[in-house]
């Protein structure tokens, strides 16, 4: 007797997504990229808010043309369902009974109100893995705090350390903590949550039980601060937006960010050999021989005078020239690229680092899945669903409603 070959990746697993932010949607997308059947639930009235955020082709808002919405929701199916209505809730419960995984990014209070907490879900489906991504987790004193990206990045320790380089252009006291203009906390916690969900699938394989997966965005962000945590725990160094004195406790110097002829460059010399090599690249100027720069500790102590000297050289070169001459000598230096330069780079093209999608009449490129596994992950790119696009296959095909039922459900605002 030969057993039927089991499907690859996460194919055959059913995921219900209830989200309004980046974290829930992107986490579910990662599972969709691995082959899971993700059913995204949107409210019938306004739909997901990413539909209104863009970017849109020619900046013309259109709920089916948001680049961000497509990025977050590729490879999913979409249904409209009103979880506030009693009937909508009943349909949702039937859907949960068919699911392996529930992903949500609602607040703990909303989860309780909508009956989405694991303790409610498990009654319906004991094998369900219910993953809640919340700003601070489902327990603890901040559980009910309001938050968005900048707040989570701040309470996770990242903004205090940004910009993370010593810089003589702007002093630390003048430059306030900073965030990146992206949904960093959302994407980071979604990646962590995707890993946690697969771990929970392994646990389910052992005992057959579903379980709660409780992912804290604050903890996911704090996890990214691990280098600074190490330096603080072992040597009391609070790296912060580092000054030169503080940098003396870190691993190597220079590791700096300085102006060049046409922008900014990162100069990193991670060992004495690397520093020597870099001095040669600069043409061995006399200042390098000074006692102040004899080893990494001395260079860190005298970082300001070192930077002043260093810039004399970097100012004479373009960023691309510095990248080329350092990288070809095995030094990890780099200049700051514009988005257009990364998108148009030969490297990105060769790596298929962006995937193409037609939105309206315009070709949109978006960041590709972060890795690829043959036949398993990151090779399928189906556009995000229109609002309610899969109502019929899901409600009729999966749950057994008749199309006539859908009309009355629509009439009472349930779908």
């Amino acid at each position, binding site marked *: 007797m030969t057993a039927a*070959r089991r*499907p690859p990746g*996460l194919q055959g697993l059913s995921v219900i997504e209830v989200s309004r932010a980046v974290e829930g949607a992107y986490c579910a997308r990662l599972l969709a990229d691995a082959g899971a059947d993700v059913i995204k639930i949107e409210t019938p009235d306004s739909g997901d808010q990413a539909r209104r*955020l863009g970017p849109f*082709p020619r*900046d013309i808002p259109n709920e089916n043309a948001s680049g*961000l919405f497509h*990025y977050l929701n590729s490879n999913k199916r979409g249904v409209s369902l009103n979880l506030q209505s009693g009937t909508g809730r009943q349909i949702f419960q039937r859907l949960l009974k068919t699911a392996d995984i529930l992903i949500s990014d609602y607040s703990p209070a909303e989860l309780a109100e909508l009956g989405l907490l694991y303790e409610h879900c498990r009654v319906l489906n004991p094998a369900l893995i219910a993953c809640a991504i919340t700003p601070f*987790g489902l327990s603890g004193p901040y559980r009910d705090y*309001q938050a968005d990206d900048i707040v*989570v990045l*701040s309470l996770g*320790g*990242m903004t*205090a*350390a*940004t*910009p993370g380089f010593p810089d003589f252009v702007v002093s630390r*006291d003048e430059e306030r903590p*900073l965030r*990146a203009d*992206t*949904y*960093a906390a959302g*994407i*980071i*916690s979604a990646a*962590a949550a995707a890993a*946690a969900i697969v771990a929970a699938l392994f646990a389910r394989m*052992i005992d057959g039980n579903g379980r709660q*997966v*409780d992912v804290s965005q604050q*903890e996911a962000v*704090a*996890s990214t601060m*691990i*280098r600074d*945590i*190490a330096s*603080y725990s072992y040597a009391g160094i609070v790296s*912060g937006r580092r000054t030169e004195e503080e940098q003396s406790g870190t*691993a190597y110097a220079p590791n700096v*960010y300085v102006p060049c002829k046409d922008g*900014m460059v*990162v100069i990193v010399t*991670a060992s004495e050999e690397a520093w020597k090599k870099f001095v040669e690249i600069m043409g061995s100027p006399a200042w390098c021989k000074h006692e102040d720069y004899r080893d990494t500790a001395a260079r860190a102590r005298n970082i300001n005078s070192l930077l002043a000297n260093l810039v004399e050289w970097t100012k004479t070169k373009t960023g691309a020239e510095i990248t080329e001459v350092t990288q070809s000598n095995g030094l990890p230096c780099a200049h*700051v*690229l514009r988005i257009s330069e990364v*998108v148009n*780079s030969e*490297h990105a093209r*060769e790596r298929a*680092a962006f995937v193409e999608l037609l939105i309206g009449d315009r070709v949109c*490129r978006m*960041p590709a*899945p*972060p890795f690829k*596994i043959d036949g*398993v*992950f990151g090779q399928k790119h189906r556009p995000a669903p229109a609002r309610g696009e899969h109502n019929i296959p899901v409600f009729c095909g999966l749950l057994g409603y008749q199309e006539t039922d859908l009309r009355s459900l629509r009439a009472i605002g349930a779908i």
Partner: protein
Amino acid sequence: MTIVEKIPAGRRVATDAHKRPLAGIRVVDFGQVILLPFATRWLAWLGAEVILIESKKRAFQRVTPPFAHDRPGVNTGARFNTMNNNKIGCTLNLKSPEAVSLVKSLIAKSDVVTENFSTGTMEKLGLGYEALKAINPSLIYLSASAFGRSGAWRDYIGYHSSVNAFSGLAQITGYADGPPRLLGAVLPDTVGGMYITFALLLSLFHRQRTGEGAYVDFSMLEGMLTLMPQPVIDYTLNEREWGRVGNRDAVNVPHGIYRCKGSDQWVAISVHRQPEWQHLCDATAHPEWAQDPRFADEWSRHKHAAELDQLIETWSIQQDAQDAEKKLQEAGVAAGAVLSVAQLLEDKQLNERGFVVDIEHPEAGSRKTVGLPWKIGGVPTADYRRSPLLGEGNDYVLKELLGLSDQTIEELKMKDVIE
């Protein structure tokens, strides 16, 4: 799944270890610096047995400062000890063919190989994917690097700072009138580490179902790009090059980080909708702001964001950051103090959830670190343990897993195969 033959001597293992998701999985790890060690440490916390192959002579990962007690040494380094919890260390001289064949025997009994050497190193050692797949057909092999194992930049070296610059993220971080900025967190490594953990779990799940192994070529650059869909899409759709906007947001206003009482104290505030704006005016006891036509609705507030930021700072500068956070949160406004790494480890939320852990190390003493950023019901809390001392796991790997005799081990030491 591989059956773990025996628990290494002297290692404390929780009695419910078999309930951990990755119990029975063995990983042979050639991880360096942060990117890969970050991920394999999470796998170890999920129950995998992670064997770190190290060099005694070139133990530079271990001697990266700072050090515990200011005492440089191979077992006191902050970086190494923080990135390699729960792993078993084995010291081999990979320049010797005999060491490579020992590693191959180990890999034949393992499930996963992970490496982040520079491009081509593993192939030169005879440890490339194709070679190892021949001895272990269902092997999962993950290569991690700054730019990937193919493409024009495959031989470029990238630390987090350079990858940040290459990704374009630095270009869109900073103030409109200032230079590009780099994020403080080692984000290319740590976000990469999270994606790698996901990739390995997914590959293992796939193998569990189909028996097939997998090859993963992870690039830090591509991990970073996933953080910035909007600037990429806006450029490709509308040829718009994003500039820098500081802490401002396209939707929420006010949205920023405001100076508080004391030195280097700050609070982040983000106001989403009209009711929250009203709550902010109430909580700060500035009802006149709510009446001010410059701030009447979102559109007006965006237009007058600079003036609004200044006004908010006249309030925040008189508050302790924690008090500002509390007052705003109690009024339903998203706000949070900017925590330094020192405050982070003392944060009551993180501590109450058991995320901050103390790990005892015989040479480094008791040191705080942070654990897994999630809780999975019905799965025992990770058994957080220290990093291995140099060579500590040699006996377990060489004798118990590979079955070498004491005499053979002595001979191999003499021949500089085992370090």
